[in-house]
């Protein structure tokens, strides 16, 4: 019976054209009216996952607030210092113990006394705290952004290598990651900043970046391990797609969601770290200004009741970190593929 059940062999090649002419196969699949219905939808652009995520992000109120604040901060620190650069040298005649509270100050400009606004007050040396905040922001946020990028880049590379090759390489790399996680982070940063730091942005970026990548590497590797087993990866292998293309075209894009969220939080972390390290004197050198530096110097002012010197840079840090955290929350919700396909 089995022998008779086999249909006669067909000539290959006539398949496609024959089918398209007859459409018998498709007829019960395409319903009448589907054609007209779909025409209206053709006009709407098809959205990729990234576009959908962007839409979800836009609907997330907290995230948009955070984004707004962040953009505001970024613009301020970019544009304002162009008009009000930080001047290291002391302004003669402006020093006053305890500085001046927010309001107006009198300054000698071209030999004449002028009243100038000092919305955030002044420091002991008479510097405008507002000037400190916007200039300091450049360095602090630069540290945040670039250390995030370094950590992200190194982390993605290491995580991809570990996840892709697996086996001994994976094992070895993960033990390295374990060592990093075992070290007391803050102490190492302080020590490294003390001994390797040269007081500039680059050192701090490198130090923080190179100590933060393990988190990213772990996330990428974890995604790799789970995505490697996914059916669509098997499907790509089944049609003959090479391993390298699978890693970069299939696995990595799907592994990026948790990484993006982690990186935004790293940025916030880095800004706080910079403040911490500079506050203790190991970070940005005195000739430049960062939020952390400002906080360090502001300790003197407290004795005289100068609360604004510490308050405004501190608020700037807090606000920026808060904004980034809100954005991170929004990103996490937006990128989670489980919500509504």
């Amino acid at each position: 019976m089995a022998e008779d059940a086999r249909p006669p062999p067909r000539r290959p090649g006539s398949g496609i054209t024959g089918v398209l002419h007859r459409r018998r196969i498709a007829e019960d699949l395409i319903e009448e009216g589907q054609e007209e219905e779909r025409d209206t939808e053709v006009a709407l652009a098809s959205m990729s996952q990234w576009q959908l995520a962007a839409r979800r992000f836009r609907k997330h109120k907290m995230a948009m607030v955070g984004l707004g604040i962040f953009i505001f901060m970024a613009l301020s620190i970019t544009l304002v210092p162009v008009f009000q650069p930080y001047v290291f040298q002391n302004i003669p005649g402006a020093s006053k113990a305890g500085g001046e509270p927010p309001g107006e100050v009198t300054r000698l400009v071209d030999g004449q006394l002028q009243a100038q606004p000092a919305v955030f007050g002044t420091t002991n040396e008479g510097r405008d705290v507002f000037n400190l905040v916007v200039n300091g922001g450049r360095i602090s946020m630069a540290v945040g952004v670039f250390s995030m990028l370094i950590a992200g880049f190194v982390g993605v590379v290491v995580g991809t290598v570990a996840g892709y090759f697996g086996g001994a390489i994976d094992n070895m790399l993960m033990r390295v990651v374990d060592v990093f996680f075992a070290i007391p982070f803050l102490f190492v940063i302080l020590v490294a900043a003390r001994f390797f730091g040269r007081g500039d942005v680059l050192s701090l970026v490198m130090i923080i970046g190179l100590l933060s990548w393990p988190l990213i590497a772990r996330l990428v590797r974890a995604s790799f391990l789970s995505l490697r087993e996914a059916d669509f990866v098997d499907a790509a292998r089944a049609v003959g797609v090479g391993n390298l293309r699978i890693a970069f075209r299939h696995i990595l894009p799907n592994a990026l969601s948790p990484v993006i969220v982690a990186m935004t939080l790293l940025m916030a972390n880095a800004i706080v770290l910079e403040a911490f390290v500079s506050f203790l004197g190991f970070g940005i050198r005195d000739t430049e200004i960062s939020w952390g530096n400002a906080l360090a110097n502001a300790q003197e002012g407290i004795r005289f009741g100068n609360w604004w010197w510490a308050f405004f840079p501190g608020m700037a840090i807090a606000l920026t970190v808060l904004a980034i955290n809100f954005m991170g929350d929004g990103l996490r919700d937006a990128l989670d593929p489980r919500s509504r396909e």
Partner: protein
Amino acid sequence: MTTAAPPLPVPAGPAPDTADYLLEVRDLRTHFHVMDGTVKAVDGVSFAVKRGETIGIVGESGCGKSVTALTIMRLLDIPPAEIATGEILFEGRDVLALSDREMRALRGNDIAMIFQEPMTSLNPVFTVGNQIAEAVRLHLKVSRREAMDRAIESLRLVGINSPERRVKQYPHEMSGGMRQRVMIAMALSCEPKLLIADEPTTALDVTIQAQILELIRRIQAETGTALMLITHDLGVVAEMVHDVVVMYGGRVVEQGTVDEVLLQPRHPYTEGLLASIPSKGMRGARLNVIKGTVPNPFNMPKGCNFAPRCPYRFEPCPEHDPRIEEGGGPPVACWLWKQAPGHSIPQELHDQQVAAARRAAASNTPATTAVPTYHEAPR
């Protein structure tokens, strides 16, 4: 673990005017308000369950059957869900009007529910015995030891060997079939009057499914518990239930005894569904296909929501919603079986139109021998 909570209030006896209906659902509508709009997951569902009997709620994914069960148990998060209208009467009392405390007394005690995925329904950090005992102690004023004894007994009741040993095991140490038995044990530990089973065997292999279904049947026979079985598997329905409710797109499209609905289906959806199931004797014939796909839940079609896919569709269908009316009228939501209102055409003309629709359908649909055809169905 926890200290014994004061026993929850014992629900009052049934109101005097109930028939012997244990559960009555009347025109239930549950809506979900989500980012993209409102989904009418349950859109006017009515049915009733008598004491000790079994009812099957049948439909494919997205038809609203699970949401109906969750609404009865009031397990939905109220935003985004909203119980728009409807009554759910359990022993004559309106479930939707109960306070949280009264509802907790009802759940587990009078109405129990088992779910599809036994792994995620059992807490992985507690032993199986603990979980059953907890359910017992919540509803019955017994000591810890006695609760554990009852747990062991209920494991034995569901056919688990060496229950004294099993009671100390964790869910991950058990197989799927065993876990489902534990779920059933937990559900029955307080001797509920109604058991709601939401796809209890879908995740199980067919031989294990056979075990579980036999178990449920036996327990029902022994304890007289009513059963509301939710499934998409018409074979399971044929074996297990007395009455069937067929759902599509949040609405009931057909109701009746299992013999009526499965052997002489009236609604085109039911008929199409039965004809899509491959079975013996269908080899070589093309399977019947219900054209198209389930409509977008945000944008249900006007009138009969099955009309776009219905081979028998004719004039009134896209205009008027053929809901099943309470009290009189055939329990089918279809204009082939009743006179369309506002259509105001004489009966004769209506009959002619219906016959024309049937002929049109017959010429499109391939003949299938396994299922008794539509045309023999009595009016």
